[in-house]
């Protein structure tokens, strides 16, 4: 029975003085799209490398697809590293076939899959070209293709969309979702919260080598409560900063995300706005965006290193 595609228990890893991951538990349910969130340097890549057994943890247990990582498991995983890399002098099609063979595919099967994939990514005409003659974006698409070519049960993508234009982001996203519909589990790391919010069922946030949040997206948002006010204003909005019951203010120019203190009445905002000489265009009570939750959590953790962990 595999209902957990990935199960980490008490993972710790340091490099010299530097603790990259500290006592991390992570449970990724099969078939989910799981986002690993965190600022640069929070230990995301290290965590992914530990899951793939590229580096071993100092402490803790790793279980992937129901067992410890061995050759059989490796063949069922597709990995897109953050630092993309292909052999620059190999031909595109040869390269894809080579990487697929390393995942246990047969040469002929791999060749057919690669050709089909290249067509889908509109790279069919480049299949005989050397990798280093391709543009960066194209190379990235080739690399992405190589991670899904062997129909992996688990896709691990490290910052998959960075450096791509919106059209290609949509294209790759479509392929990821397609894999998920066919039963694959997807774990991807990102420092861009919008990506996670758009795609993920569940998220785990890490900051400073520790986990600060973990769970289904909906639950995380619900637990944060509907204390988020979206306000659209015309006029001088500086009064918002003076209000005592505003805990946090995100200024987006013409509209504001406002987080209230516990127990504060959102109507107070409207009242204050009416007494000022401004025009209210929009007023909405909303779930906090993941971004707000993240900033709050990561910020708290950074401010006081001993901050309590939420899990």
């Amino acid at each position, binding site marked *: 029975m595999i209902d957990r595609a990935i199960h980490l228990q008490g993972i710790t890893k340091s490099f010299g003085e530097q603790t990259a991951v500290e006592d991390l538990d992570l449970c990724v349910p099969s078939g989910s799209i799981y986002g690993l969130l965190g600022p640069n340097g929070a230990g995301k890549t*290290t965590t992914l490398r530990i899951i793939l057994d*590229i580096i071993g943890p100092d402490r803790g247990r790793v279980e992937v697809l129901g067992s410890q990582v061995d050759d059989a498991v490796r063949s069922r995983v597709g*990995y897109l590293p953050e630092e993309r890399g*292909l052999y620059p002098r190999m031909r595109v099609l040869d390269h894809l076939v080579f990487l697929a063979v390393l995942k246990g595919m047969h040469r002929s099967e791999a060749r057919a899959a690669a050709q089909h994939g290249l067509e889908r990514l509109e790279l069919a005409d480049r299949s005989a070209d050397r990798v280093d003659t391709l543009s960066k974006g194209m190379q990235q698409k080739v690399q992405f293709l190589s991670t899904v070519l062997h129909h992996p049960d688990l896709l691990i993508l490290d910052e998959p969309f960075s450096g791509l234009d919106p059209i290609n982001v949509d294209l790759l996203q479509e392929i990821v979702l397609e894999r998920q519909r066919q039963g694959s589990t997807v774990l991807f790391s990102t420092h861009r919260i919008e990506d996670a919010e758009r795609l993920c069922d569940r998220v785990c946030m890490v900051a400073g080598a520790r986990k600060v949040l973990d769970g289904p997206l909906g639950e995380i948002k619900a637990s944060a409560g509907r204390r988020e006010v979206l306000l659209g204003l015309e006029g001088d909005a500086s009064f918002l900063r003076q209000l005592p019951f505003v805990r946090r203010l995100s200024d987006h120019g013409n509209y504001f995300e406002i987080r209230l203190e516990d127990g504060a009445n959102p109507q107070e905002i409207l009242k204050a706005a009416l007494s000022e000489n401004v025009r209210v265009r929009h007023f909405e009570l909303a779930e906090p965006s993941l971004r707000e939750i993240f900033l709050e959590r990561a910020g708290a953790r950074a401010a006081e290193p001993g901050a309590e962990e939420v899990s």
Partner: protein
Amino acid sequence: MSRKAWAITKREYLERVRARWFLIATFGLPVILVGLIFLPELIVSRGASGDGDLNLGVLDYSGRVADDLGDALGDRWTLQPVHEEHERSEEELREAFLATSLDGLLIVAEDPDEGGSVRLLARRAISSRQGRELRGGIRDALVTARLREHGIEEIDTRRLLRGADLQIIQVTPEGERSREAFQIVAMLFAVVTYMMFLIYGQLIVRAVLEEKSSNVVEVMMSSVRPWEMMLGKMFGVGAVGLTQIAIWAAIGGLLSLYGLPGLASVLAAEGVDLAHVRLPIGLVAWALLYFILGYLLYAGLFLAAGASLGNEQDAQQVVTPLVVIIVVGFILVIGIIESPESRWAVVGSLIPLFSPMIVPARLAISHVPAIELAGSVSLLVLGMLGSAWLAGRIYRVAILMSGKRANLPEMVRWIRHG
């Protein structure tokens, strides 16, 4: 070997053999080698610097050399006797010589038997072949003169002085072989092994560095284990080397069958009759075994060196000691070919770093006792396994190091600035 290691081996091999440099290296190196053998010969024989006939004046104070020197030297020398009534000072002689159109002025002192000097004032540099001829001619002329003084005349001095052609044939229970012929073979083994270790060692370093700098390594590590990558690389690159040697052997075989104009004569000058050089299969097999084991030993070391480096500049520092070891091995071989039974040869054959170069050369020119051979091979195998083990340990950790390095500063920055 696992399927994955095999796939990596194949990739390493095909990518290299298809590359343009492979053709250039495979066919360029023999041309350079042959050039190195022939070029000095060409300069000497064709005489690019007017190494033609020489017109000498001979000032013979002793009166014993001038008459016979002409016969002793042959057609390419023109001699003009020069007479001086009085002994002239060196300075005067030089001035007088420069005023003439002679190529050189040979001055024989009064008593060359008693250590009197013979000097040649020459307008241009004299080639070493001409020097040898002149030296021999003077000797022959003097011998003729001395014989005449003892009442022996009408004798062919050259014939008198000619020795016998000494052929050294080592006879062992395994058979016999001619020293000169196999000295060339030994040299060939040594040079090829030396070159291949150096070239392919550096090739491996570059391959590992490229893998690191292009970040392929991380993708690879998600599919295969470090040792599979390592073996694939070592075997793949090694197979390219063997292919190259096979091509050279084929070229060499064809040349010795159909003959390269000039090659036979060059070899003959070294005392080698090509017709008598037949490489025993056993010798070739031993040479191949030592080459493969030695290659794997050095490949492991170069691989570990390459993996532990961040960039091309560091590479030179770590690779240099290995290069020095290989060069020392080659220098040892040169000495050992001169005296194959020396203690150096026996000791060197037991050191795994040197034995791949030394033993095939020794086997070519002399008999190596079975017990020594057994010891040498076992130590080499141990050395090879040791190097592979060491390389495996270093490679596993070091191969990802560049990525790690890039991440640490980011981590530190984040912790500092929240």
